């Protein structure tokens, strides 16, 4: 299948057209020294230079969301569902492959026994236009370790390949993606052959050749719940939860009621396994009472428990938890150590 060729300078114009069609537009923009995915930003501020600090999850699973409303009238209480917020059709423009790939990873979770209508409503209305990585955009990247790659199309509806500084090849991956074809078409400057893309893919993967493949981690973890590794590596964890909140696949939430006089809402708020309160029982007992145990939980959930349950690693190798950890506790280092020890039978 041929790929549409266009000038990268025209990408903001495509984004503008998509926004003009009434879609909620999410795109990476520069703020200070970082990039952030932001909703409703000016398409001209599109900044694809590096991987944004936040992930795209907040646009499908907001940090706080009302799920039901209750009201007391005398001794009666009425409870009403709050329908999923009408965010409407959403185009995430310029997502990275590791962010796009997080969607198929978490979909089974939100549809396991209970179907989460809030996530599903947003997911169904979201189209992802992904900007593939020519080379790894950051030292923290390790998508190849978890079976993805800098050109991975997992979760993408449209995939943009920046062949060089000025030229982008466009591939429409899904039916939802093909619906956007008209917005791109007028900027088309011919076609790109499959071979150019093959070279692109190889360059990208070569830039991550030094990263280990995490193919034996699950088995190692299953046998090393009690191990010196956890205390050794995680003593320095300050329990800030930054890793979980920036993670595209971490999805834990807490249910809170907030009321004022006779009206209240039940809210679904982001939560994190790195907090001591996360597992604190009413009795005062805390099964994960130290930070290394909480850190171990995060690794287990991503690399053992989730794969056991859903057959997928709960990590896309985006590297945010590596890059933004305030104490440089690198998830890559910890999991790579597990892999190495598995390889040498330790």
């Amino acid at each position, binding site marked *: 299948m041929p790929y549409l060729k266009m000038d990268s300078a025209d990408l903001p114009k495509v984004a503008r057209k998509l926004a003009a069609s009434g879609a909620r537009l999410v795109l990476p923009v520069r703020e200070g020294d970082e990039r952030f995915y932001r909703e409703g930003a000016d398409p001209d501020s599109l900044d694809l230079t590096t991987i944004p600090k936040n992930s795209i999850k907040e646009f499908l699973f907001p940090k706080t969301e009302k799920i039901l409303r209750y009201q007391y009238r005398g001794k009666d209480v009425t409870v009403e569902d709050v329908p999923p917020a009408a965010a409407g059709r959403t185009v995430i423009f310029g997502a990275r492959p590791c962010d796009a790939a997080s969607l198929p990873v978490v979909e089974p979770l939100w549809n396991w026994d209970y179907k989460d209508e809030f996530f599903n409503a947003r997911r169904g209305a979201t189209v992802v236009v992904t900007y593939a990585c020519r080379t790894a955009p950051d030292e923290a990247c390790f998508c190849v370790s978890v079976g993805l790659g800098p050109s991975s199309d997992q979760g993408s509806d449209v995939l943009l390949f920046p062949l060089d500084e000025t030229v982008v090849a466009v591939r429409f991956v899904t039916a939802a993606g093909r619906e956007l074809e008209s917005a791109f078409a007028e900027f088309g400057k011919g076609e790109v052959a499959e071979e150019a893309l093959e070279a692109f893919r190889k360059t990208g993967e070569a830039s991550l050749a030094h990263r280990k493949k995490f193919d034996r981690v699950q088995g190692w973890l299953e046998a090393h719940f009690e191990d010196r590794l956890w205390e050794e590596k995680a003593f320095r964890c300050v329990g800030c939860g930054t890793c979980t909140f920036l993670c595209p696949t971490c999805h834990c939430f807490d249910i809170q009621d*907030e*009321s*004022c*006089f006779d009206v209240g809402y039940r809210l679904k708020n982001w939560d994190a396994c790195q907090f001591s309160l996360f597992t604190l029982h009413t009795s005062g007992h805390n099964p994960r009472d130290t930070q290394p145990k909480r850190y171990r939980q995060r690794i287990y959930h991503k690399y053992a428990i989730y794969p056991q349950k859903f057959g997928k690693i709960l990590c896309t190798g985006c590297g945010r938890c590596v890059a933004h950890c305030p104490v440089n506790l690198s998830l890559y280092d910890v999991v790579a150590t597990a892999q190495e020890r598995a390889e040498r039978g330790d």
Partner: protein
Amino acid sequence: MTTEAGGLEAPAAWEPKIVAFICNWCTYTGADLAGTSRMKYPPNVRVIKIPCTGRFDPLFMLKAFERGADGVLVSGCHPGDCHYTAGNYNARRKFTVWRKLLDFAGIDLDRVWFSWISAAEGGKWVETVRNFTETIRAKGPFREYGEMIDVR
């Protein structure tokens, strides 16, 4: 009636809602004196008794604003008169810092009043409540804080 935000709804004829955190020993007794002396003052004030201004916590004020208060008054014994010797002196430092912080965050300081009213000053209580109520009435309802949750 309540709004979506859970705050009290502004009815057709809006009336200022003032929450007063006042100390048990001086201002509360002063307010009591105003009552037993049959002095009239606006019914807009909701009194919450605290043991001492030293017990006042800025969280009380935020909670009041969260629940729809248009103004908050904190009042206790004059310097030197604290039942616990120095509760009000300690409180004064907290007030200084907290008030400045509110200002820095852009909260209108006319909605946050502090006073020293003794057990003998029923008249000062009446006058303070009256002036505060009129100030708030002139400013109108305080929506910037309580309804922040729905602005988004």
